[in-house]
């Protein structure tokens, strides 16, 4: 690999790291923050876009793409849940108006709603070998009736088995 190529990889690494750290930024902003030339930055972003590691929003800002999200989930050994887990947790949170969370080890990967001191539902999400890969947690609002709790518990279980189904893929 030539010196030029080495510099290119370094620029890519800095740009990708910068994108993972914050909100959308223009290519020019990324170039300034990472000390990469604008020409090189545009080329790198183009290649990252092709690979779906980044996307442009409507205003031209560069954000993480689905491939980057999958890379992030792969860090926790649950790459196949990328994209799906967010939708499932959002579905659960909306329907229950409860705090819903997906945790891997000590890391809260997805947390929707206002955290509560106590968790009411807490269940493992296991892979095809039965190994726990994540935990799904939920804390309902105060004064949730017993009948509502039953329905919420049913939705919780549906999300849990959905996550396990996607883990097995």
């Amino acid at each position: 690999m030539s010196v030029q190529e080495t510099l290119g990889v370094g620029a890519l690494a800095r740009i990708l790291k910068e994108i993972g750290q914050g909100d959308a930024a223009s290519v020019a902003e990324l170039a300034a923050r990472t000390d990469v030339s604008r020409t090189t930055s545009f080329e790198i972003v183009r290649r990252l876009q092709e690979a779906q590691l980044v996307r442009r929003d409507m205003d031209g800002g560069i954000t993480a793409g689905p491939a980057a999200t999958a890379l992030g989930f792969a860090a926790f050994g649950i790459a196949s849940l990328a994209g799906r887990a967010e939708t499932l947790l959002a579905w659960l949170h909306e329907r229950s108006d409860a705090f819903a969370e997906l945790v891997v080890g000590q890391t809260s990967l997805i947390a929707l709603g206002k955290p509560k001191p106590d968790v009411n539902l807490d269940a493992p999400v296991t892979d095809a070998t039965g190994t726990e890969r994540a935990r799904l947690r939920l804390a309902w609002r105060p004064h949730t009736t017993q009948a509502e709790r039953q329905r919420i518990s049913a939705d919780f279980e549906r999300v849990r088995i959905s996550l396990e189904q996607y883990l097995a893929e």
Partner: protein
Amino acid sequence: MGEYRNGIDGAIALLLALTRRNGEATLTELAAECGIARASLYRIVRILEDAGLVRRERGKLFVGPAGAAFASGSARRSKALVGGGHRLSESERLREKPEAGPVELSAPPAWRRNGRYRIGFSNASLSNPWRYALVHSVEFAAARLGRAVDRFTIRHADEDAAQQVADIDDFIAEGVDGLIVSAVVPDLVGPAVARAMAAGIAVVLVDRGVSDHVPRISFVCADDAGIGRLSALWLGERLMGQGSVLMLPGHSEAEPARKRLAAALAAFGNFPEIVMLPVEWTGWERERARDIVRDHLSRSTPISGVWCDSGLQGVGSLQAFNDFGTPRGEFPPHTGGDLNLAYKLAIRHHVQLAAVDYPAAMGFRAMQVLHAALQGQWVPSRVDVPLYVAITRGAATRSLKPDSWAEDRVRWDLPDDLVFHSGLGEGYNPRAFRVHYPGNSYNRSAARALQ
């Protein structure tokens, strides 16, 4: 084996390969998969490791903390896109039919562009006020998307399936990014929907679906069986299991109407002593229902209760009883809401009414789901918009409790053809509705004949 062109390509290939291996791989595996010489691979790994994108441990490569950071940002990015922001109320939640099994999701369509979408809506018809409310609801959602919509076009098929197929094919030819379809006849429109999906167009069905085997991104609707079941249970309980019921369902070729009727008939099975008069389809037309009921009244048919799946035709029945001179308070109990006039007539004539409203807000929700899919989100394969129940005061039964009393829901200050639960807010007036989105002119709605 991958194709290695230069260092940047190699780095990208390595990150993607590491993802495919669920975040753990040996360098030998990665070198082989990416087609990178080992020496070059090591250099790439060192650089990515310095940035925290990968890390080495025990001879293997893993995703590093900078790579892991992409996971925690994903929920924040998707939260704004997925979901309609509607929290189910307790009664809505408890009214839903319980479901088990996984939540089915649809993968997003192949990425086309970021925002500035061209969207089409193929609407079955404008044959009644509810359909106007549906169109208004979709238009309102398009307007809310602002610059994300490059152009939004609506075509009405006037209940002509062949016309709708032609409309969808026109949308395909125009190269829209996304399409919302309310199907005239599922079996006839299904192939056109399949063609759209095959052309890479994201299709979201609303209100009326197509056959299950036809690919689509999502189907946004409401629990038609619930409408039939709940309204029938209410009526049977109000009649205390006795008497005769006149069945006036909607349109015989519309899937929602057939589902509601089937569920209602099944529910009436709980009341074996109720006499079911023959089913008479109304096409959701007020005057047809009026004629049917007028005919029965002229023949002195005993009618203890009237089951309608909507107030669209229910108002015709109420008007027929009024025409016949039925004293206030002596009308049989009716089902069927949706329409402001149904509430007005029920209250004026002291009719016991149960309205299980079919939410026109599903139009708004369909546009939200489509936009989320176009933005690269996984979306639920089916989205049920909650039903809304209004009952005249004091007429609740064991099986059906209201979200509000009809007397509190009715809008005496708004037109008779106002359809509730459109997602357009308390000030919505179908006769004064104006909206702006790219593709319409003079802020006029594509459904404006009522105005």
